[in-house]
């Protein structure tokens, strides 16, 4: 649905009035369009301490034709002894499109920055954090609208030394705070990259730098070394793949279908028979297939597998569990029927489908190296008054994802979840006005997300190149205050 407040304060006259009154003005987020440049502006890549991942990060950026303005005269790797200087423009960069920044303009001809990537993975002592501050702070004044800050660290839990673990954990605090400090639709996220061959970094880096991650802000993603299958064409990572999307008839599900189809997949659109009319429209729009199945039926998994076996050589690459319902009521008033229907559809059905589709003997089950992505919710993390059943199911999804990821890791299958915050859908449009406005604004981007933001995140997790990301719950919430 429309966010009329954002429309108003971003209109020509509304902008002036909002400025005079000091009203917050949510930025218009840049969203992915095939073929668009990765960034608005150039990128600065820096490192602190040893910065062993710098070459790989540079290579990723170079492969995406991003102008790198990290000044040659400035050491890439700052140490406490060598203060990092502000980088100086070495080349012209594309001028930023979109609304002007609310920050004061930087002096001189320094180019706007579309992204700042800092490899802090080798930071082990408190002094390294000063290097990080010194490297990052000057860049923050020069960000383009919807710029990207990405920090790369080492998982603190992998470090035995308390000082080293503390230093790495500090990155978490830094990125969450910087994300709240940024304006103009800019985001800041942290990748904790496990030790080992670093190729697994490319997929999260590409995602977090791109406009696909418009509503992913203040998040921490863990990536482990893995057997990564880089796509031949990053704009069509799912070419030749088959994906099943449940709850595909409307809202976020319909958007997931479109994103997978746009990126090359054949989409089997699944929903309950009663939703068949909308489902057929969604499927036909992307030349996908409509499959009317009630996922709570005892034979639902077999029916999906039979369909895949008949129509797609038995190869299912990706399973997206999106179907879900709400039956909101205070726990004190919830009866067994409502309780059971929410848990049955949102959680029980997923568990049963996974069990069937993960049977390696089943033709039409999930292929080796396949992907499972589930839709959780902020309610499952933060809880929500009147949503005990929904929160139970969505928290349960997180538990399922974490346990299952470990179970199927040896088959190259990853299992992840996204946890959407306030997303503008038919469902949230029905929330009473005051509650809705609150839900929309209490995040760092000052606005609700779009279904496509959830869909892009799911598609990222489902990529072959995301092999290093498993057992994760990625919030798509604009860094909501809820449950953070």
């Amino acid at each position: 649905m429309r966010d009329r407040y954002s429309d108003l304060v971003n209109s020509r006259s509304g902008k002036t009035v909002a400025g005079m009154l000091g009203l917050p003005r949510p930025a218009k987020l840049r969203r992915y369009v095939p073929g668009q440049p990765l960034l608005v502006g150039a990128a600065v890549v820096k490192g602190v301490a040893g910065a062993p991942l710098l070459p790989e990060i540079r290579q990723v950026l170079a492969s995406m034709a991003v102008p790198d303005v990290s000044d040659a005269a400035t050491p890439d790797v700052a140490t406490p002894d060598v203060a990092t200087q502000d980088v100086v423009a070495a080349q012209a960069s594309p001028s930023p499109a979109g609304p002007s920044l609310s920050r004061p303009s930087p002096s001189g001809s320094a180019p706007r920055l579309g992204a700042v990537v800092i490899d802090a993975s080798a930071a082990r002592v408190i002094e390294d954090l000063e290097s990080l501050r010194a490297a990052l702070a000057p860049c923050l004044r020069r960000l383009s609208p919807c710029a990207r800050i990405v920090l790369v660290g080492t998982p603190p839990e992998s470090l035995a030394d308390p000082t080293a673990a503390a230093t790495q954990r500090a990155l978490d605090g830094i990125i969450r705070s910087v994300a709240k400090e940024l304006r103009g639709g800019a985001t800041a996220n942290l990748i904790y990259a496990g030790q080992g061959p670093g190729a697994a970094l490319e997929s999260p880096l590409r995602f977090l730098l791109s406009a696909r991650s418009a509503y992913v802000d203040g998040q921490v993603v863990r990536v482990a070394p893995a057997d990564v299958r880089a796509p031949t064409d990053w704009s069509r990572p799912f070419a030749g793949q088959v994906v099943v999307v449940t709850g595909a008839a409307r809202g976020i599900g319909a958007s997931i279908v479109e994103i997978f189809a746009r990126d090359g997949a054949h989409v089997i659109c699944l929903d309950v028979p009663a939703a068949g009319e909308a489902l057929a429209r969604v499927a036909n729009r992307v030349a996908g297939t409509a499959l009317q199945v009630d996922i709570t039926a005892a034979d639902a998994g077999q029916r999906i597998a039979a369909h895949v076996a008949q129509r797609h050589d038995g190869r299912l690459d990706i399973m997206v569990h999106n179907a879900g319902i709400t039956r909101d009521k205070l726990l004190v008033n919830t009866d067994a029927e409502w309780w059971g229907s929410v848990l049955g559809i949102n959680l029980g059905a997923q568990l049963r489908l996974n069990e069937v589709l993960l049977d390696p003997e089943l033709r039409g089950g999930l292929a080796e190296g396949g992907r499972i992505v589930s839709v959780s919710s902020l309610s499952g993390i933060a809880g929500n008054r009147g949503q005990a059943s929904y929160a139970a199911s969505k928290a349960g999804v997180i538990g399922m994802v974490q346990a299952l990821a470990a179970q199927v890791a040896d088959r190259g299958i990853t299992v992840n979840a996204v946890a959407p915050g306030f997303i503008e859908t038919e469902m949230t449009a029905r929330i009473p006005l005051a509650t809705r406005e609150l839900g929309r604004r209490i995040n760092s981007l000052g606005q609700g997300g779009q279904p496509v933001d959830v869909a892009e995140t799911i598609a990222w997790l489902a990529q072959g190149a995301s092999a290093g990301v498993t057992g994760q719950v990625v919030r798509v919430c604009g860094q909501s205050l809820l449950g953070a």
Partner: protein
Amino acid sequence: MSGNSAGPGAAVIVGGNRIPFARANGAYARASNQDMMIAALDGLVARFGMSGESVGEVAAGAVLKHSRDFNLTRESVLGSRLSHTTPAYDVQQACGTGLEAVVLVANKIALGQIDSGIAGGVDSASDAPIAVSDGLRHTLLASNRARTPMDRARALTGFRPGHLVPEIPRNSEPRTGLSMGEHQAITTAQWQVSRESQDVLAAASHHNLAAAYDRGFFDDLVTPYLGLVRDQNLRADTSVGKLALLTPVFGRGDDATMTAGNSTPLTDGASAVLLASPEWAAERQLPALARVVDAETAAVDYVNGDEGLLMAPAYAVSRLLARNGLSLQDFDYYEIHEAFASTVLVTLAAWQSEKFCHDRLGLDAPLGAIDRSKLNVNGSSLAAGHPFAATGGRIVASLAKQLSVKGSGRGLISICAAGGQGVVAILEAL
């Protein structure tokens, strides 16, 4: 012709789709034939992932048709997600339209003229064509032919207020003036079909259809439309006792046994069936549910002769069995369209009647009885409703799926039609 039965050229049924059938002036009161046909086609396209693709042809039709719908099927294709390069034509054989369309497409596939096709049908009893009276039409046409304003004025003087009474389509036979129900009431009385046996058949139809919905049988046969998820006429909780309470609407005196409960209601709906050569289906990794074995159409003289209006299928089946060397008992499923409960019962009685089979069908022995547990196992028109041209597609797709689920066997389809006609066909599991 030797019923090219199991020959390599035989067409297979890939699958079907229909919208739930609505009672007239119900859920689809504002939907046109074209709207509903497009919905049925789009659901079929979505089921088989064919958006933007073309098939050899689409053959479909409607019984009640507006004059603007002269090219209904082609216009429906153009409004659907099928490729605009898909040819289409209209078929009309009253209630036999849908099955006749299947036969046409299947035959072209068997002959190798096309490798795939869609057969369908649609009807709206709600959005019925209302025409101006012949008097007004003649007056307006005369005025249109006039060359001078004077001539035109003179032509218009032919207008009479009575011309304003519109022509509303009626469910009656043009040559007898009797409605189909009235015709069938005569046949019902002739064959002494009891009220109770009709109500038993009607109740079974509802119960079978409801059970099929409940076990998900229609999940890949029906796509909801305009908020309707199941057939609007379906009464899962009906019973012989409840049906017995209804007042007869056709027939007189003791012979008045036909009620609104054991006759099909006027209905709106559409259906479509995807047929193909086995090779075409295999190349696209599409299912092949059953094979179209053979078909036959018969007509009876109900105008001057003494045969009942809806008795033609009894003749058609007899000829079809003979041509294929089959007995009436060689089937696992029987789909006998329930125009009225008594139509089914009279047809079954006729096949058991030594006299009928000898005198009318020219057989030495009666065709015999069938196992009633194999009859209309997933419900039929009494429960689902009967949008005239859409019934054939409903039956063909459902029977093909039933045969595919069983994995073997043969099914017989029998559909009676206005004008004293009957279209029948044999499907066989693959």
